[in-house]
């Protein structure tokens, strides 16, 4: 017998769930689909930004490498030489292998498929999810991939987020959530594993403008959780970070 499911809440999806929903093994994808079936699904533009920064940028990078090489084998050899980490190398090779496996696709066809993923991927991967504007009003979330004169893809306007360029309301967001963030700080101070994080949180609470740029990425999980409305349950696969933050902020969490 099928277990009873609660369908009276909104599922707020974090980046990890959206990535798993689209790029996990088939049995895990099915499990996620089953958990989310019939639930209204929501996410924030901050999550969209993370999705673009992670997946779309990787696809654009891979596309540019292959565009410059004459064959798939050349691209694979080059990736093996230049990849910054084993994680990046394995992922790029896995993507190339899976795309080229389809009907023994050649270089040109892999390029076309990568292009399709870059151009309509965001829409496809978010197709049944309602997206609302994050309280941070992150400008990067609205960057679109465009084809450059040389045939590769880049974001327009360019992907840059520094403290000097004001492109968002993250400082306003920090001020607005001051009491929640102070509760979070007090709660996490009890756990030494969060020392680096709590140090940053203290600095940001003292000067919200420090939240801009790279610090914003570090605070990303907290921003995503605070963006979730009270009537929603947050869905994530990231137990390590989401469980303590949601517990401290008294937010409902469903780990997948």
């Amino acid at each position: 017998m099928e277990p009873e499911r609660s369908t009276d809440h909104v599922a707020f999806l974090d980046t990890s769930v959206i990535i798993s929903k689209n790029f996990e093994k088939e049995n895990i994808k099915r499990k996620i689909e089953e958990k989310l079936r019939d639930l209204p699904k929501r996410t924030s533009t901050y999550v969209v930004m993370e999705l673009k920064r992670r997946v779309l940028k990787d696809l654009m990078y891979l596309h540019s490498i292959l565009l410059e090489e004459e064959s798939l084998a050349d691209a694979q050899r080059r990736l093996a030489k230049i990849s910054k980490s084993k994680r990046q190398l394995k992922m790029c090779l896995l993507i190339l292998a899976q795309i080229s496996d389809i009907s023994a696709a050649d270089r040109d066809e892999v390029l076309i498929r990568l292009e399709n993923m870059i151009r309509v991927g965001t829409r496809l991967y978010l197709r049944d999810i309602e997206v609302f504007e994050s309280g941070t009003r992150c400008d990067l979330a609205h960057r679109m991939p465009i084809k450059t004169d040389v045939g590769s893809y880049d974001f327009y306007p360019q992907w840059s987020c520094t403290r000097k360029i004001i492109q968002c309301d993250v400082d306003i967001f920090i001020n607005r959530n001051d009491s929640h963030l102070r509760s979070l700080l007090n709660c996490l101070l009890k756990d030494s594993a969060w020392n680096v994080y709590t140090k940053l949180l203290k600095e940001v609470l003292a000067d919200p403008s420090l939240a801009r740029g790279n610090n914003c990425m570090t605070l990303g999980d907290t921003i995503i959780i605070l963006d979730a409305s009270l009537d929603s349950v947050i869905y994530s696969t990231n137990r390590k970070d989401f469980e303590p933050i949601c517990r401290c902020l008294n937010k409902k969490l469903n780990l997948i």
Partner: protein
Amino acid sequence: MAENENATKRLIDQLRKEQSASITIQQTETVTKTVTTKIEVSGASAIPLASTIPLAEPTKPYNFLSQIGVIVSPYPLIDEAIISRLRENFDDVQERQIIFLQFKQNLEKMRESLPVKKGGKDRALIGLIDAVSNIKSENLTFNQLNAIEKVVKILNKSAELHEKAADECLNILIEADLEPVPKLVGIARYYEA
């Protein structure tokens, strides 16, 4: 042009009588002003499903019947008749599987025959191939079939497709809950925090 149209109409009337088949016509004016008339015959027929008959000169009369059976096309056409058959037999699960597989193979052959793979049209075609590859006939809905047909008609309309039109084709498929890109499996773990 008018002469060609009249000649085409006469041919269609004749074919209708002979083959009892439905025929659709499209006319395309190429850059060189050569008019190409495409004749598609659907239903049981001795004539190939997608025949294209070129007109040497728009002003000269053309013996259509002598050209029947010779496929000369300025660009490959997707067989729309298969979709009609799929629609007619949609409720029969067995027929749906058999016909949908033919449609997939038809697209696959077309993909193999592409001389150069680039540009909007090839991108939309490969998106369509991926969309149908990612779905089994038993899960295909009528709404998805409509979306596929819409994209096929756009692809058959002209030799070239603007990038935006190609995106539109992909979006039509996405809206129908089809996936016009390859399914990537098992890469999520590389994005874990």
